[in-house]
């Protein structure tokens, strides 16, 4: 993974200038009156076997990005190339067959499991769906999966409400693993959990990733969690990727003023180390009406006059470290 030049064949997923706009309707005939630019021109690539962390505050478009990449949403523009195949505009049976290889783990373990289904049926459903056999035939395989994610065997016959939040998230992970996918998109998989349970789930995801040779797109708002999990990190702000770097580099040597503020805003669990914080003023602007130029300039402590006029592009500062800020261009 640490090879200097990545060969084309090492790349599992390539996202090029991906856009996802939601129309805003209003007026008499519910005409389209504008767009919410949830994801605006993001490009990234995931290497095989790596964990790519996508981090940002609420409303920055990270979840939309994740769901557009899995093709739960149809992109407004750009390209998604998965395993050498362009899946941007696939539909019907072709999309269905590609989805075997891309699975998702959702944030809310209470809402993402059907309360009326037994855990066994929930986990075997994807397999049944793709014609891997009947539920009865697959029982041994599902039992094996449940055991791999750390659930007791009798979980097979229980219902989701009988489990705690952490265990439900394990069920969600087992379901995502069932089809042996190549890519798992985990959208805030631990933000609904307590810290002690959160660490259980993070450890599980890490060990399963090695065992199943998974590529992971890990979406979260908590930078310490993302850094713990990821090989590389992308920071999103208002629908834009503002910085991509290797995880340690991102923490030790952040370039973008937003990344700097984000890192300094995290309260550190160390009372002897109260570093000076960069306190940002104001809130994240609405993506329906983003600021001109750099989307971060109204809150940026280092903003220059030209920041409101010119929109910066993601450019390399050094190998494996790209930043979108006029300070570096």
């Amino acid at each position: 993974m640490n090879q200097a030049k990545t060969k084309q064949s090492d790349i599992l997923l390539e996202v090029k200038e991906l856009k996802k706009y939601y129309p805003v309707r209003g007026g008499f005939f519910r005409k389209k009156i504008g767009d919410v630019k949830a994801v605006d021109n993001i490009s990234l690539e995931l290497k095989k076997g790596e964990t790519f962390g996508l981090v940002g505050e609420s409303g920055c478009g990270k979840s939309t990005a994740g769901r557009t990449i899995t093709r739960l949403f149809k992109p407004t523009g750009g390209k998604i190339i998965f395993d050498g195949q362009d899946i941007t505009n696939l539909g019907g049976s072709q999309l269905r067959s590609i989805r075997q290889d891309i699975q998702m783990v959702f944030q809310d373990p209470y809402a993402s499991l059907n309360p009326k289904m037994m855990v066994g049926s929930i986990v075997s459903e994807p397999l049944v769906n793709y014609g891997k056999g009947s539920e009865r035939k697959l029982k041994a395989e599902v039992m094996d999966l449940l055991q791999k994610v750390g659930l007791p065997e009798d979980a097979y016959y229980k219902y989701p409400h009988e489990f705690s939040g952490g265990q439900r998230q394990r069920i969600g992970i087992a379901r995502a693993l069932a089809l042996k996918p190549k890519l798992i998109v985990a959208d805030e998989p631990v933000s609904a959990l307590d810290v002690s349970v959160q660490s259980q789930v993070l450890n599980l995801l890490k060990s399963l990733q090695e065992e199943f040779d998974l590529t992971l797109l890990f979406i979260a708002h908590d930078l310490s969690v993302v850094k713990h999990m990821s090989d590389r990190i992308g920071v999103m702000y208002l629908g834009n990727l503002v910085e991509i770097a290797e995880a340690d580099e991102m923490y030790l040597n952040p370039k973008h003023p937003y990344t700097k503020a984000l890192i300094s805003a995290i309260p550190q669990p160390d009372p002897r180390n109260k570093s000076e914080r960069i306190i940002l003023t104001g809130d994240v602007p609405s993506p329906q009406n983003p600021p001109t130029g750099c989307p971060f300039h109204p809150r940026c402590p280092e903003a220059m006059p030209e920041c409101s006029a010119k929109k910066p592009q993601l450019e390399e500062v050094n190998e494996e470290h790209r930043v979108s800020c006029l300070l570096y261009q």
Partner: protein
Amino acid sequence: MSNNDKLLEIKNLHTGFDIGGKTYYAVKDVSFDVNKKEVVCIVGESGCGKSVMSLSIMDLLPKHNGKIDKGQILFQGKDIVPLTTNEMNNIRGKDISMIFQEPMTALNPVLTIGFQMDEVLLNHTRISKEEVRKKSISLLKQVGISRAEQIVHEFPHQLSGGMRQRVMIAMAIACQPQLLIADEPTTALDVTVQAQILELIKQIQEEVGMAVMLITHDLGVVAEMADRVVVMYAGQVVEQSDVDRIFYDPKHPYTKALLGSIPRLEEKIEVLNTIKGIVPSLKNMPETGCRFADRCPEAMPECRTITPELGETEKGHAVRCILYDTSRPAEKAEVQS
């Protein structure tokens, strides 16, 4: 520390809920103090009784089944448990005020911000309506809302989460309370906004000179804010000390495990510490023995038979664990006899 410095003393508080004819204790035998002008953080996972404890102080428990069974809550030396609702109304919002986790649900959606701000002042002070409105606007400015004159005419849904929490704080400090109880005030907010709000609470605490009881599950917030820390587990205080000793010399296995389970930015570790299992629910609480025994990495057989008590290992540092002699009730009894 002299007795006069104590603002709030909680003594052997037992808060229970009646479910199906039986009383289950969400808070069992909790004792701790909050001194004047001090920030005390209450930390623990969900279901540890942190919020029930704060609701007990404010007398905001659900009327139909929640009750304080035993114990005292002394505020400025006076027990506030037996007070009537009317008497409590004079204290709530004036001497003790509270901010909640979710600022959207804590504000009334159909009333303007100004109306809700004025209400607090009209209830607790004797100044005219015009004066009250001026005071409200200046309070909003104090919490960093620059458009205060317009905001008073707006409704909660027109504000962002961080702004709403600022309004809540402005309301809470309106009468210059002695004690501010903040129940997970930043959990629903983004980190950059959380940093703003924590900074604001700290700044106002210093300005007004009030004590803050901050309830949180985020150890980062604790390290940032606290003077003293109370660690709760399953309705009990398992450890309390000043913030430095909690982070650098934790005693209770639960505190240690909590500290070990958070990913830290500056370190690179492959496997995080975990605490096996989950907090036992109210109905499954072990009757005898340590409540943490089932999840404890250092549990011994006697942990399930001896119920540990909170005892000081050194001045200002108390632990509830039989690994530390002071908390063995049996030995204590021997000494006494």
